[in-house]
């Protein structure tokens, strides 16, 4: 019988050694998820008002600088404000790493990452980068253990997503604003809502449903002063029919109603369940497990924990062979944890060391933080991450960075380090032997961190 502790840490957390108080069996993990968010309590971040204010400062400075010559004081001021936006963005990354390192609720942290990826979008302007990433703390985190319908609404109505998925550019063609300016629909948010966020690609909807949903969503907008707002004069008048249901007239009520209905669709249940199994267990998921999770979700009116309960209690969840690869973010958190770097240290780190040792290496490993190629997020397949480039970057990090992070003389002995970060995972014994043969503790540590045993999950 394999010890469940390392499996819980690898498959549903951020690796070993587990923080004090971390649960390791399904019921305890679920009980912790049902309680408050310990990661957020340890490291609270910027509030929505602070992020909105920074976004407003940036957009205002942009407008002022726009028509001024090069090197004008206005442009300099704008560049200064943009740097503050970048700093805020980087603070969110540090906070995510810090919570990943120290929170005893590793599964919650992993779920936050999962849903952040599920609701991906790309900023159109550098000014928007921090407000877009703030959706994770302000729209996703509060709902990862609640109902998907609430999660969906919180995210789709978040200013970052309204900007990133072009909803701000969508105007009802027959609305007063549309008539006056000759502007029209932008279907992006409507399409991603159906295709990526709820039902899934090709799941029994038609182009006309996307278009009708886009008409229904008109009026959702973002202002510099207030953030997300509903602007009636941009809203397409009348009712719309989405998937056979009539919604209307214009307003937030029908928009919320359509999202609730989308969340309750069986196609949505299957799409979400499948993605969860693929993310946590295997790129080739067990369809029976997917079906059971989807049933649990529908029976609980889109509550997410019943679905997680089925996942955690599936025999496949405790099957010792690991089929996935840690994504670069997870690699980084697990490696830092293994090296004894805690969240406070990550927050204290200077800007340059943080970028050189953490942020840029993640980019070289293939995961430029919060910058996936498209709104469909990061790839899942292990082969998408363990590429020559991606693995070379992991090996280089493993061999070179730990020596800079750990104080001289405090470098652990390689075999003990292998036991510390791998527990009794398969291959740990052999790896400890190989690591002991390294020329130096630095290389021994590197070998452990670069090994398949450490990089799979």
């Amino acid at each position: 019988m394999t010890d469940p502790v390392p499996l819980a840490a690898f498959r549903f957390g951020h690796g070993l050694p587990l923080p004090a108080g971390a649960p390791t069996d399904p019921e305890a993990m679920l009980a912790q998820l049902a309680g408050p968010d310990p990661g957020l309590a340890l490291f609270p971040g910027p509030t929505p008002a602070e992020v909105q204010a920074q976004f407003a400062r940036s957009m205002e400075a942009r407008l002022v600088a726009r028509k001024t010559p090069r090197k004008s004081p206005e442009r300099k001021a704008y560049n200064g404000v943009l740097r503050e936006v970048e700093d805020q963005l980087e603070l969110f990354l540090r906070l995510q790493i810090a919570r990943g390192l120290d929170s005893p609720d590793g599964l919650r942290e992993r779920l936050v990452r999962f849903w952040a990826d599920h609701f991906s979008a790309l900023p159109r302007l550098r000014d928007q980068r921090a407000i877009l990433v703030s959706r994770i703390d302000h729209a996703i985190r509060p709902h990862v253990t609640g109902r998907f319908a609430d999660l969906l609404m919180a995210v789709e109505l978040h200013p970052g997503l309204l900007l990133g998925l072009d909803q701000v550019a969508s105007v009802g063609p027959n609305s007063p604003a549309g008539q006056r300016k000759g502007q029209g629909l932008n279907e992006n948010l409507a399409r991603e809502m159906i295709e990526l966020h709820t039902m899934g690609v090709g799941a029994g909807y038609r182009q006309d449903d996307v278009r009708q949903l886009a008409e229904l969503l008109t009026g959702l907008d973002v202002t510099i002063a207030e953030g997300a707002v509903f602007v009636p004069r941009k809203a397409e008048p009348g009712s719309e029919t989405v998937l056979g249901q009539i919604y209307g007239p214009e307003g937030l009520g029908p928009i919320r109603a359509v999202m609730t209905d989308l969340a309750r669709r069986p196609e949505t249940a299957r799409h979400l369940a499948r993605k969860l199994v693929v993310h946590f267990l295997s790129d080739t998921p067990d369809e029976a497990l997917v079906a059971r999770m989807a049933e649990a979700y529908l029976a609980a009116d889109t509550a997410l924990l019943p679905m997680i309960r089925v996942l955690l209690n599936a025999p496949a969840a405790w099957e010792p062979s690991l089929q996935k690869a840690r994504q670069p973010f997870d690699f980084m958190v697990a490696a830092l944890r293994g090296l004894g770097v805690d969240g406070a240290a990550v927050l204290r780190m200077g800007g340059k060391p943080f970028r050189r040792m953490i942020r840029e290496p993640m980019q070289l490993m293939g995961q430029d933080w919060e910058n996936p190629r498209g709104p469909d997020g990061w790839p899942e397949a292990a082969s998408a991450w363990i590429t020559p480039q991606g693995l070379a970057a992991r090996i280089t990090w493993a061999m070179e960075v730990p020596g800079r992070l750990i104080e001289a003389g405090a470098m652990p002995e390689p075999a003990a380090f292998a036991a510390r970060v791998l527990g009794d995972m398969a291959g740990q014994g052999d790896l400890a032997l190989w690591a002991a043969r390294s020329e130096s503790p630095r290389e021994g540590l590197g070998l452990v961190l670069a090994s398949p045993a450490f990089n799979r999950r």
Partner: protein
Amino acid sequence: MRDLNRRMFLRGGAAAVLGCSAAASPWLTTVTLAGGVPAFGERRLVVVILRGAMDGLDALRPVGDPMLARLRPKLSSAGGPGLPLDGFYALHPALAGLAPLWSAQELAFAQAVSTPYRDKRSHFDGQDILEAGTGLDVPQPEVRDGWLNRMLQVVPGLQSETAYAIGREAMPLLAGSAGVRSWVPEQRLNLSPQARLLLERVYHEDELFRDAALEAMELAEELNAEDLRAAQDMAAMDPETMAPEMPAPPPRAGRRLADIDRLADFAADRLRGESRIAAFSLSGWDTHRRQDTTLGPSLSGLERLILQLRAGLGPVWGQTVVLCMTEFGRTAAENGSQGTDHGTGGTMVMAGGALRGGQVFGTWPGLEEAALYDRRDLMPTSDVRAWAAWAMRGLFGLERGVLENAVFPGLQMGADPRILR
């Protein structure tokens, strides 16, 4: 339903559709009945995305059009008159180093080209559509793969080394279901012999890690050997031949060119070996202000890239086509801050020994106000995708039907412009 089928086709890629029975797909017949079998063979294709909208009217100045000097009183002769090519066009002075290629018919341009993207002139959307390779009938967010990847999906014989996306920048035109390598040329993997040996042991049982590590180590070893060779060359260089009249470039420019050399050398190395396709980006083209000082360095970088590729490819340069494309052109007139703003029609730069070069392809629309698009931009007279399509048809033997439906859905390639030798 037609709509959905089209989207599935784009999504899953041509290969996926060919593999299943998507009978409703309107162009499947064209694809399956295509006669010749395409192949990668010995030909090489390099695609460079010039991010930020290169000003084609400055890179390739239509000095024979009397309107040019009137629309661009300062820019049309900034840095000098440029290098006359054919009486009508002159090369920007910063590209003058490409003159030998022009004479050897290894350099060509397509003037007044554009993607189907119009009017909004956003870099983001413009690059999206350039790399997706679609028309406007397919909303961009739906297209998750790029045209160069779709080409890889339909040519048999794809190997893991066939195509490379190079550099830190994401290359959406190569994204998709066909396997593509990526590498950042700055990546090094300095391992002690013992560390390497132990890593090989540790990876031995896991095929995914073993294969990736083996390739990474081989790549890194080659790159290390080159670094060493370059250092030795530098040390052995006769000081007399180091062109003493050339002032040393300022450090910033030096770094930029060194980055470009690394990019070009890595691409050339791969392409001399098993690779046939390479793609990467050059940025620095968004010249809204003081274009007389901002465009030159970017063009020098482009010149350096082409020369370095030519030198590095050596014997296989004759089998190679380099296509440099940008998301759109810039305004016909210079603006109030001696720059240019986002426009429409632009210029494609082509180089390579496989090219029938020494000419400017495309139809010149003229610069009179009535001839301009929206009375402000160069009017596009051809689709930038058509030139890429003809290049791929010539290089790899893809059928027209495949190019017009699977690689560039909705494209009309038009008559063969015979751009290859």
